C-alpha cells in the first residue's frame, strides 16, 4: 500500500528557537554536553537551516549522526562560568500527510504484529529492534494496563484511538510531577505525568503486545486561547510515540494531546525511549550546590 499519488499538502514553515539557560551558585570549571536539538529530515519534514550556539563559547563543538540517524551535538566548555546557555535555532518546512486512518481501520492489530516477521526487509528488521524493552520502558511494565485496548481482531486504528482516549482519560497532565528518572510503574501509580511519561506509556503498551514502537522527541505548535496573544517562549519541547505498521510505516500519535501527529508537529529525534534522545544532557565540574534551569521554546509559523 502506497500513499504516492495523493495530493502534496501545502508546506508550512516554522522558525524554531529553543534556548536553555543554566545558572549556578558557584563557578563551573568545565562543562561537557550532548544535545539532540537539530530537527532531522524525515518524509514530510525538511530542516532548511540550523545553528546551535553555546555560550560561553565552547572549545569544541561538533555534530555526528547517531545510531538512530539523529543529529547529535557534542560540546565542551573549559573556561570558568556560572551561566551556560545553549540555543538552537532552526528553520523547518513541514508538509506531513495526515495519517491514513481508513487503512489503519482496516488492519487487525494482530496482522500488524505478525507482519513484522513477513520478510527480512531492512525496514522490518529495523522496526523489530523497537519491540524490545529499553532503559526507561521496562518490558512488561504496562502489560496489564495495555491489555484492554488490544482486544481480539480490533483494527490497529481503533487500538490507537482507544489507547489515546484511555491515556487522556486516565491520566492528568501535571508539570513538575515527574523527573527524567520517573519510572513507568510510578506514573501508573500516580496517574499524573508529563508528555514524556505518556509517550513512554504508549510505547510500552504497544511493545507489550508485540508491536514495534519508538519514542519521538520534537515540538508542537501551540495556539493561544481565542482572543489572547501568543506568549513568547510558551512552547516547549514535546514528546510522543510512534508505532510501526508494515506497509504503512511509522504512525505518530500524541497521547498528551489525544491526537495523531500532523503538520503542526516538528520531529527532532527518535530512539527507544527518552534516554536515547534527551534534548540536552551533560556533565559539569563544580563546587556549586545549586543550579537553576530556564527553558524557552518558540515555534513560530514563518511566512
Amino acid at each position, binding site marked *: 500500500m502506497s500513499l504516492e499519488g495523493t495530493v502534496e499538502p501545502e508546506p508550512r514553515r516554522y522558525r524554531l528557537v529553543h534556548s536553555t539557560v543554566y545558572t549556578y551558585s558557584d563557578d563551573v570549571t568545565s562543562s561537557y554536553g550532548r544535545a539532540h536539538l537539530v530537527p532531522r529530515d524525515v518524509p514530510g519534514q525538511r530542516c532548511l537551516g540550523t545553528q546551535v550556539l553555546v555560550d560561553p563559547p565552547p572549545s569544541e563543538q561538533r555534530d555526528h549522526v547517531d545510531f538512530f540517524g539523529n543529529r547529535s551535538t557534542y560540546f565542551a566548555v573549559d573556561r570558568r562560568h556560572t551561566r551556560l546557555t545553549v540555543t538552537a535555532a532552526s528553520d523547518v518546512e513541514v508538509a506531513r500527510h495526515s495519517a491514513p486512518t481508513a487503512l489503519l481501520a482496516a488492519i487487525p492489530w494482530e496482522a500488524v504484529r505478525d507482519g513484522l516477521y513477513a520478510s527480512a526487509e531492512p525496514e522490518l528488521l529495523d522496526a523489530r*529492534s523497537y519491540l*524490545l524493552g529499553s532503559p526507561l520502558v521496562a518490558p512488561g511494565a504496562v502489560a496489564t494496563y495495555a491489555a484492554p485496548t488490544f482486544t481480539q481482531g480490533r483494527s490497529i486504528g481503533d487500538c490507537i484511538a482507544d489507547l489515546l482516549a484511555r491515556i487522556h482519560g486516565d491520566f492528568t497532565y501535571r508539570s513538575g510531577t515527574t523527573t527524567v528518572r520517573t519510572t513507568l510503574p510510578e506514573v501508573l501509580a500516580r496517574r499524573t505525568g*508529563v508528555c*514524556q511519561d505518556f509517550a513512554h506509556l504508549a510505547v510500552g503498551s504497544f511493545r507489550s503486545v508485540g508491536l514495534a514502537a519508538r519514542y519521538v522527541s520534537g515540538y508542537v505548535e501551540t495556539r493561544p486561547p481565542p482572543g489572547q496573544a501568543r506568549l513568547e517562549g510558551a512552547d516547549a519541547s514535546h514528546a510522543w510515540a510512534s508505532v510501526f505498521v508494515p506497509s504503512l510505516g511509522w504512525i505518530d500519535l500524541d497521547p498528551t494531546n489525544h491526537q495523531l501527529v500532523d503538520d503542526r508537529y516538528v520531529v527532532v529525534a527518535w530512539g527507544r525511549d527518552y534516554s536515547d534522545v534527551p534534548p540536552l544532557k551533560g556533565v559539569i565540574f563544580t563546587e556549586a550546590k545549586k543550579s537553576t534551569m530556564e527553558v524557552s521554546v518558540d515555534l513560530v509559523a514563518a511566512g
Partner: protein
Amino acid sequence: MGARRPTVQSYVPGDGWDEMVTAGAGLVGPEVRPHWSALSDVADLLGPDGLRRRRDEVGRMLEDDGVTYRVLGSDVEQSWALDPVPLLVEGAEWAALEPALIQRTELLDELLTDLYGAREVLRRGLIPPEVVLGHDGFIRAWDQIRVPGPRQLFLAACDVARDSGGVWHALADRTQAPSGAGYAMENRRVVSRVLPGLYRDAQIHRLGPFFHAMRLALQEVAPTTSEAPRVVLLAPGAQSETAFDQAFLSSLLGYPVVQGSDLVVREGRLWARSIGRMEPVDVVLRRVDASFSDPLELRADSQLGVPGLVEAARLGTVSVVNGLGTGALENPALLPYLPALSKALRGEDLLLPSVQTWWCGDLLGRAHVLARLHELVVKPTARGVGTQSRFGWLLSASEREELARRIEAEPHAWVGQEPLALSTVPTVGDDGLEPRSLVLRSFAVAHAGSYQVMAGGLARVAADRDSITVANQAGALAKDVWVTTTTTVVEPWVQEGLPHERVTAAVSPRVAQDMFWLGRYAERAEDAARAVRAVQDRWNDFHSGAEPAGTAALAVLLEALTRVTATWPGFAGDDRVAEARSELLSLVVDESRPGTVAHAVRRLTESATAVRDQLSPDTWLVLNSMDRALHALSRRAGPTRGTVDPDLVGTLSRVLEGLLALSGLIAESMVRDPGWRFLDCGRRLERAQHVTALLATTVTTRRDPTVDSLVLESVLISAESIITYRRRYNARAGVDTVLDLLLVDRDNPRSVLHQLDRLADDLRQVPGDGVRREALDGELRECIARLLEADTGALANQVAGDEREDLRDFLSDLGRQLRSLSTAVELAHFSARAPQRQLDSVVAPSDLEAL
C-alpha cells in the same frame, strides 16, 4: 603409563574425564597420563602432609605479595586462593586448542567490527537483530567507532572446559574488559617457587611472550599520528574486585595505572593530569566497565569514567581497548549462531565448539528450553548483578514455573544450555589429592594482524569436590597452567622489538596525594612506635613508685605520649585512665583508634594499596609482617587485655624492623620521580611535626634536674638521637643542647630544620607554578629562616615561674606553621578537580493541554 603410588593411588577421580588419570576399563585400572608422571612422582614423594605444607606455603606467599580478590559488593579483600598443583596440558593437545582459540577470537572480532559498522550480519539474517540489539553489552553510543589496525577486539578471554569425552568446549566468551592475565602470571610466580625442582625440570611454555605481545599490541593500536604512544591502564581504583590483577598487569606491561579522575578530554583528545602539566594519552587499556567509562554518554552517575572519552575515540585521537562495545560479544545468545557465522564470514568450520545453547527468542529454542527446564542450565543474556545461572535440576517445581513465566515474558533475554560435565583435576585437599571440576580461562591479544594466545591461562577449580560451579564469587581456587613442550624454551632477557621509549612516569595529583600520605603514615607509625617503646621502658623501670624522680618523670612522659599521639583522654586531662598497661597496649594494637601504631599501619597499608603500581612488590612482604606482629600481640593479650605480659616491646621492635625495611625499600628501590618526592614530603612534614610536638609536651616546663634529665633522655631516645647526643655533649642532658640537636642541627636527620631542608629539596624537584606554589615556597622559606634565627640558649634559659614561656610560644608557633605548610603542599599540588555532577535536563513543563 606410570605405575601409581600411595598418594596418587588413593586419588579417586570423578565419573567424567580426569586430567591426570585415565578412566579404567575392565581389568585395567586408571593410569597416570604420561605428561603428569613427573608431577605425580613429586606428589607421592610429598605425601598428604607435604602437599598441605605446600598449600600453606602458597597461602603465605600470596599474602606476602599482597594478592587479593574482592567479592563483588563486599568491602573486604580476600586473599587469592591458589592450589599448588598446576594443571598440566600436553603440548600436542595445546597445539590443537590454540588455533581453535585464535579462530574463534578472529571470528568474534569480525562480528564485532560488523556490529559497530555495517551490521551486515543482521541485514543478512545471520543473527536475529533482537539477539544483538536487545543485549545490554551493545553500546549504541559506540556505533561506527573504530580503533586503528585490523582488529577491533583487542583482548579476549574465553572460558573453556571439557565434556565427558575430554573435548574442549567454549563455555563463555569474556570480551568486555577481561581480567585474570595478571593473576595467571602471579600464579606462575608462586607455584614455580613452591615446586622449584619440578618447575626447573619441566619443559613448559613461559608466559612472558604473551605480555610482551600485549605491550607491542598496545603500541600498534595507537593513533597513527603519535610517534611514541603513551599508554595508560584505566582502572576503577583500589576498591575494584580485581585491583591486584590491574596493578600487576600494569607493572608487567610497564604502563601506569590511572583512574578516571586522572584523565580529562580537552581540545578533542585525552590527557593525563600530571603534576604541573598535562600529558597526552594515545592508548587506554580499559579495565573500567564500559557503562561506567563515560558519564556523558553512558551511566551519568559514574565517577569512574571520563566525560568526552567516547567523543575523543570517535575522533580517533585516542584508542580505547577494549572498545566500549565489546561487551556485545559476551552475549550467550550468540553461541547458537557462531557455527553458521563462521561458515558465512570465513568459509570455515568452527574449530572450538561452544557448549550447546538455545536462544529463547527463537520459537523452537524456547520450546526446547521450556520442555527441558529440569535438565538445562538457564541464564539471562544480560551481564551483571542478578544474572547468575539457574540449574534446572536444582530448582523446585514452583521455581521452575516462575522461571518459565519469566522466559515467556521476555524470551529474547534468556538462553538454555546443555550442562557440561567438566573434567576433574587433582587438587590438594585435607587428605591428599582430590578431584575438582575445572574451567580454564584462555587469553588472546590482537597482535601482528592475528592473535597471540597465552600459553595456558588461568585455571580455576571448584571450591569443594562436590561443587559444579567454578566462580571466584563462589570461592573457586586458581591453578597455574603448564603447557608442556618438547623443545627447550629460552626466554630472552632483553625482548626484541620494543621501541626504545623512555616514558616519564606521569604522577597525577591523586597519586601524589596518596604518596604524600603514604610517607606521612609510615613516619607516623614509626614515631608512635618509638614513643610508646621509650615510655614503656620508663614504665618498666619506675611504675613501682619506689623512686620519686622516676615516678615524676614517668608521669610527664605518659602525659606527653597522649598529647603527641592525640589520643585523649589517655594520660592527660581530668578523666585520665588509671591502668597504664592497658592504655599502652591500646596505643599499639587498637587499629580503629586514631593515633595508635596499628591505626597508622592500617592507613599506611591503605595508602600503599591505592598506589600499588608505584611500589616494589616487596612492600607487601613488609606490610604483612607488621600486620601479623600486631595481630599476634592483640590475640595474645586476649579480649580482656588481661594479666599475661603480651611482650609489647618485642612487638614494637618487630614493627620498627618492618618500618625500617620499608624506609630501606623507599630509599634504595624507588626512582626519584615526583611520586617519591611527595612521599618524602609527607615523611618530612610528619617528622617535623612530631619532634615539635614531642618538645612542646616535655621541655617547656622546668622540673627538678633529676626528673628533667630522665625526661630529656627519653625524648632523645624517642627522637632516635640519643647516641649522637651522648657522643657530642658528653654531659648530663640540658634543654639548650637538646633544642640544638632536635630543632636546628641541619646535619641531624631527626631535627626539624633537617626536615625542612629536605622538604625544600623535594619541592625543588617537582614541577609546579602558580600563586599557590609561590605561597608554599614563601611559607617554607619563612619557616626555615625562623629556625635559623632561633636562639636556642635564650629559649632554654628564659623561665617564668617554672615555665619556659618563650620556648612554649616558639614551639606552638612552629607547630602551627608546620600544619599550615602541610595544607599549602596539598593546595599547591593535590588540588582535586571540582566534583563531577550531572547537568540535569528535563522536558520542560508547559501548559500544552491548552491546545
